[in-house]
């Protein structure tokens, strides 16, 4: 057991699975000798060879589609998009093929692949490097969308994603790639997909988030505890398919829900969660559901990115609203 960062946990999971399953291959831009721009794949080429750790030409659509072709042959490709802002060139392949191959061939072919991409703001990155557009993928039937928010969950959920027989979009919150370290046992044990993780139990309000915003959400829960408010914190982790049961059970207990996400509000995953809670837990709710989100505008360039990102104070303010009601 060693203390590792989230990005190191990603690397550990890749190495474990490559060592234990020769069908697992890694491809992407600069993933081999350079080990990826965030070093998520560092050391893999030396250990497993260029045949299984492949630098691709700079063409994201090609990366997405090549992974589909590898997967239908029974390989388990883990394809890296250097940043989420560049994944859009691959959307045709992801939506039209990876997500529907099993369905359109009635199970004859399927795509056991993972598309990894760092996402989210907060690291003073260039334009097009800081968006959170996970809702685009959550809208597509046939995809799993998984977002870890700690080193342990990065390790366990990536193992689960690689082993899953269907395509997984694995989005890594790069703001917390190296923000915290955590003891991770490199034992090959996966965590469950399609499941929320309750990070902190509480009775007065349910705080629902995922990705890097989990940090601010947990911090808000600590501050609330100091004020005598008991907040339950749930990391959604798998935003699609969505584990509504865990969310509903929590809200049945607390009667209040605040949803926190970096992505802009309109059509965000928070809207889906809020609608689900309103449909199924209306009588449990003692206050309207409140969302704390990014704004419905273009992600600002980095001088203003903190003004865009949900802050602890924003979450506390939202909780004040729902508690006061």
């Amino acid at each position: 057991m060693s203390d590792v960062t989230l990005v190191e946990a990603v690397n550990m999971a890749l190495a474990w699975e490559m060592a234990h399953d020769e069908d697992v291959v890694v491809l992407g831009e600069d993933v081999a000798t350079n080990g990826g721009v965030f070093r998520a794949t560092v050391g893999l080429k030396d250990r497993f060879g260029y045949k299984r750790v492949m630098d691709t030409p700079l063409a994201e659509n090609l990366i997405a589609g090549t992974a589909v072709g590898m997967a239908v042959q029974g390989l388990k490709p883990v394809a890296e998009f250097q940043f989420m802002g560049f994944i859009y060139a691959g959307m045709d392949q992801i939506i039209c093929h990876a997500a529907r191959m099993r369905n359109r061939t009635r199970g004859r072919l399927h795509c056991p692949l993972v598309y990894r991409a760092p996402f989210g703001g907060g690291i003073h990155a260039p334009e097009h490097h800081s968006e959170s557009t996970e809702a685009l993928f959550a809208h597509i039937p046939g995809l799993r969308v998984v977002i870890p928010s700690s080193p342990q969950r990065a390790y366990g959920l990536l193992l689960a994603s690689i082993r899953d027989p269907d395509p997984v979009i694995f989005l890594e919150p790069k703001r917390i790639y190296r923000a915290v370290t955590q003891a991770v046992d490199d034992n090959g044990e996966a965590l469950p997909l399609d499941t929320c993780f309750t990070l902190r139990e509480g009775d007065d309000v349910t705080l629902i988030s995922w990705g890097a915003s989990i940090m601010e959400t947990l911090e808000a829960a600590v501050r609330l505890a100091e004020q005598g408010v008991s907040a339950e914190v749930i990391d959604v982790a798998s935003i699609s398919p969505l584990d509504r049961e865990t969310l509903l059970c929590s809200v049945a207990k607390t009667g209040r829900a605040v949803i926190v996400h970096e992505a802009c509000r309109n059509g965000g995953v928070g809207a889906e969660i809020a609608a689900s809670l309103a449909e199924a837990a209306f009588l449990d709710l003692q206050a309207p559901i409140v969302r704390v989100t990014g704004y419905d505008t273009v992600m600002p360039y980095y001088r203003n990115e903190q003004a865009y990102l949900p802050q602890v104070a924003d979450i506390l303010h939202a909780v004040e609203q729902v508690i006061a009601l």
Partner: protein
Amino acid sequence: MKDRYDFHVDRVRYLDDHGVPLDTLPDLANHHDRLLAAYANMVLTRTFDNKVIALQRTGQCGTYPSVLGHEVIGTVIGQCMAKSDVLVPYYRDQAAQIQRGVTLTELLLYWGGDERGSAWAHCPQDLPIAVPIATQCCHAVGVASAMRIREQHRAVVCCLGDGASSKGDFLESVNLAGAWHLPVVFVASNNQWAISTPRSLQSGAETIAQKAISGGLPGHVVDGNDYFALTEVLTQALERARAGKGGAVIEAETYRLGDHTTADDATRYRSAEELKRAWEREGVKRMQNYLHQAGLWNAEKEQKLQSECKGFVETAVKAYLASEPEPPTAMMDFLFETLPAALQGQRERLAEKYRQGGVS
């Protein structure tokens, strides 16, 4: 002073427009059974094609892209591929698919709106047709990468049309095939028209084959209605690919004798005169003429073959028309290996609606 690079794209032809050898034919000409099997597949494909169009016109099948003018190309692909190779087809490859083992009933199911039409039993690794144009090229290099990683002596044939040659998917895939020395042969059927867009507006490049050079692959232009020429070029390209010597692009020139699909009316954008000239060069008649001249064919054999093909097609049509649609719940049953708990409620509601007769 500037350096200038000169590239060469060969153009291969063995038969004239009427099936008369222009030169000494390759050894293939002595393989009579293979020639006759090829012709039979061309006739079967054309018979099937006519029937599907008739079914569409009478409301018994959905929108369908006629294969008329592509029978030789598909037949050659089907014959040249080994069973262990993988076909990555586009939507006008019925002649190749039939030879790979896709049944006529499966083809009818597909164009008749039923996903089971891509659940092929006899060529389980071949890709389903890719509807978004050229996207299959990326799958082809992925499949070829898997073969290379596993050091298998197999190859991929990736089919596309002239319109697809304009898309990044094709160019990116040719580029990767060159960079990674992948065992993939792209066969671009240049039928001169992408719906209503003529080849001249598709690209300023003189040939599609020369786009191979951008990725470091050899490119060949072949008369796609010349069975001998295409067989020779494709056989050599596949042998090279299986031997680890890399891929190729073959531009097979033909003409789309039908409409783009049953939803199209080609008289809106091309002349009767052009179509008439294309019919004079078409490949099935050319093959028949050759077989006649070689003493391998006669009117009696032709009549027997036509009758057999009609019989095969009728049997397949009967099976297709007698088939029941899948229950609506099938739309959720193949999305994932196991339906996630989050979707089970939706499936139950769909099943309940169906039980109550809500879907008819």
